[in-house]
């Protein structure tokens, strides 16, 4: 009994309250303004849903969401000039707004804008990609009536903003508890968004349930890891964990078991194999704009968080755990490249491609050098735009029953729409990593960072897997250009302004980062994490 620790007056938390002197935490509102704008706009969006009549909601929500993303971007840009190079820690040290965080915020905001444009589009699918009343049972009379109607759930806009705000906090979270809360804020809206497709509603709902159950499971892993690390270090702050790991003779079991469980949670969100099993099903079932949002933004957030945890908390012990993440990276690349070959559905194929890309990203993330950090962040930027535009293009190829995602339906598409086939070819070449596209530059910087850090065998495997993955991208290109179109094949919808803008944005950035990557590389390499 004598060993039990009771809170006493010497305990700071108790004495502060007793003295009536609670400290107001230091808050740098200017630094976190982009996040506040996004989350505040999401709250206003909820009020719009509550008080605006249904016909006016779409317009107001789109205006609010786009304005919020632009305003957050302006706030970020205005802060960038005055931001200290070593970053600031604010909100009692729970947020660390440093150069990588600002870079990832910028990436998330622009990718989020592209995704919101896709979500808002009502020209490709009349009435929008989203169901009007999710509560109506699929396949009933009312369901057929609403499928033909012009309404959609406009709640998707605040939900997307909440998810985006969570992602931004996730990238900047400097302690594990904040990180966990941010993880839930980004995940819960995504689960909902996945289940709101207008067409193939059962598939969409199935994907939402799968994502929710597996996501909750992964969150539990994350929490368990958090608890073990707290047991080890007596603190959830990343810097304290690093300090505890540095100079003690404590048992490492808690530390590495904690890191392992934490990593499972993070790798799950980044859809890194072998924690990728949700990815193909969810990417296929979710409404295509949401798939684009997840593929681009969730990946940025997950790897942003992983980079910070590994660099800030576990750099000193990297030689202990790196071998495991080597294996994970190899497994992810092999799964993505080999299973991608066997896919017959375009959305599933890009999903497996994203698993392979997650493996490449992980190579950069475990390099733990400046080069590795900037390379991985550049890769995230480049990959995000390419995959966003690729999913936007997938949404355009349709039959009367919705999207035509089966590969056989894409045969001879170049004869029907040379422009669409050309754009998709360019994007696939970027995913494959052909020069003059951002995919090539991204792979180049990540692999050279890994080489410089002595991971040559891993780079060789990555190159082989890139070649294997290139095969299935090229197969689609061959299919589009050198096959005869089927008589009752799908038609290519002429996109409205929003979708056209999103595709143009993605293609232009893919090209720009391919031929002139210097400015983005400079920005990505402008500073490390605040330690």
């Amino acid at each position: 009994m004598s060993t039990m620790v009771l809170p006493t007056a010497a305990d700071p938390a108790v004495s502060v309250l007793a003295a009536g002197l609670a400290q107001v935490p230091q808050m740098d509102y200017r630094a976190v303004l982009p996040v506040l704008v996004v989350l505040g706009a999401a709250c206003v969006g909820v009020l719009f849903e509550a008080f605006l009549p249904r016909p006016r909601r779409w317009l107001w929500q789109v205006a609010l969401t786009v304005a919020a993303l632009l305003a957050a971007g302006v706030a970020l840009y205005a802060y960038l000039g005055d931001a200290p190079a070593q970053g600031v820690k604010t909100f009692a040290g729970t947020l660390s707004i440093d150069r990588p965080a600002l870079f990832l915020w910028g990436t998330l905001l622009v990718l989020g804008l592209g995704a919101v444009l896709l979500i808002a589009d009502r020209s490709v699918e009349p009435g929008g990609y989203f169901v009007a009343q999710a509560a109506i049972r699929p396949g009933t009379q009312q369901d057929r009536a609403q499928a033909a109607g012009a309404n959609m759930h406009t709640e998707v806009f605040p939900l997307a903003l909440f998810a985006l705000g969570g992602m931004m906090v996730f990238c900047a979270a400097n302690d594990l508890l904040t990180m966990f809360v941010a993880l839930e804020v980004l995940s819960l809206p995504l689960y909902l968004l996945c289940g709101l497709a207008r067409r193939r509603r059962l598939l969409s709902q199935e994907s939402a349930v799968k994502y929710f159950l597996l996501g909750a499971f992964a969150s539990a892993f994350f929490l368990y890891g958090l608890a073990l690390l707290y047991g080890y270090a007596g603190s959830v702050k990343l810097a304290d964990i690093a300090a505890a790991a540095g100079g003690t003779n404590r048992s490492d079991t808690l530390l590495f078991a904690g890191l392992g469980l934490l990593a499972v949670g993070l790798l799950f969100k980044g859809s890194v194999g072998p924690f990728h099993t949700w990815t193909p099903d969810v990417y296929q079932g979710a409404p295509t704009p949401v798939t684009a949002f997840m593929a681009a933004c969730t990946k940025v957030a997950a790897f942003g968080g992983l980079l910070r945890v590994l660099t800030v908390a576990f750099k000193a012990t990297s030689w202990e755990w790196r071998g495991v993440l080597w294996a994970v990276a190899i497994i992810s690349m092999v799964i993505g490249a080999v299973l991608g070959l066997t896919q017959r559905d375009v959305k599933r194929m890009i999903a497996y491609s994203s698993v392979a890309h997650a493996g490449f990203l992980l190579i950069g993330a475990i390099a733990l050098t400046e080069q590795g950090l900037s390379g991985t962040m550049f890769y995230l930027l480049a990959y995000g735009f390419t995959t966003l535009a690729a999913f936007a293009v997938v949404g355009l190829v349709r039959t009367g029953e919705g999207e035509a995602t089966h590969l056989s339906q894409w045969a001879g598409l170049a004869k029907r729409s040379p422009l669409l086939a050309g754009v998709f070819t360019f994007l696939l070449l970027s995913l494959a990593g052909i020069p003059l596209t951002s995919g090539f530059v991204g792979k180049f910087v990540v692999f050279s960072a890994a080489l410089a850090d002595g991971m040559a065998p891993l780079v060789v495997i990555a190159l082989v897997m890139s070649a294997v993955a290139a095969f299935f991208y090229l197969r689609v290109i061959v299919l589009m250009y050198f096959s005869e179109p089927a008589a009752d094949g799908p038609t290519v919808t002429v996109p409205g302004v929003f979708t056209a803008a999103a595709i143009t944005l993605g293609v232009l950035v893919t090209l720009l980062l391919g031929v002139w990557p210097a400015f983005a590389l400079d920005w990505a390499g402008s500073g490390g994490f605040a330690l």
Partner: protein
Amino acid sequence: MLQSYVPILLLFVLAALFALFSVTIAPYVGPRRYNKAKLDAYECGIEPSPQPVVGGGRMPVAYYLTAMLFILFDIEMVFLYPFAVSADALGLFGLVEIALFIATVGFAYAYVWRRGGLDWN
């Protein structure tokens, strides 16, 4: 080090003994009044089985919605209690923070109210 777990172990033993004691002693000292409710799975609430024939054997979804809303606003109260106790110490900053918190939950409340989440049918 392991000694610090002794109180927890004792608590487990105590809990097990208490449960065993309660179950064993209840039939001897308790009154026996049998009625239909005693034989149900729950003495209040709806029967989980056999499922109601009306509505294809499914529960009205309104139960689920109400339960969710209850949790939401219940948690709000959970946060208000510790604030109220230490409102002095937290000062103006704490007051602003809790006002923001209530406002955020208020948005959710406005949404639920306006969209008919509080109507039973």
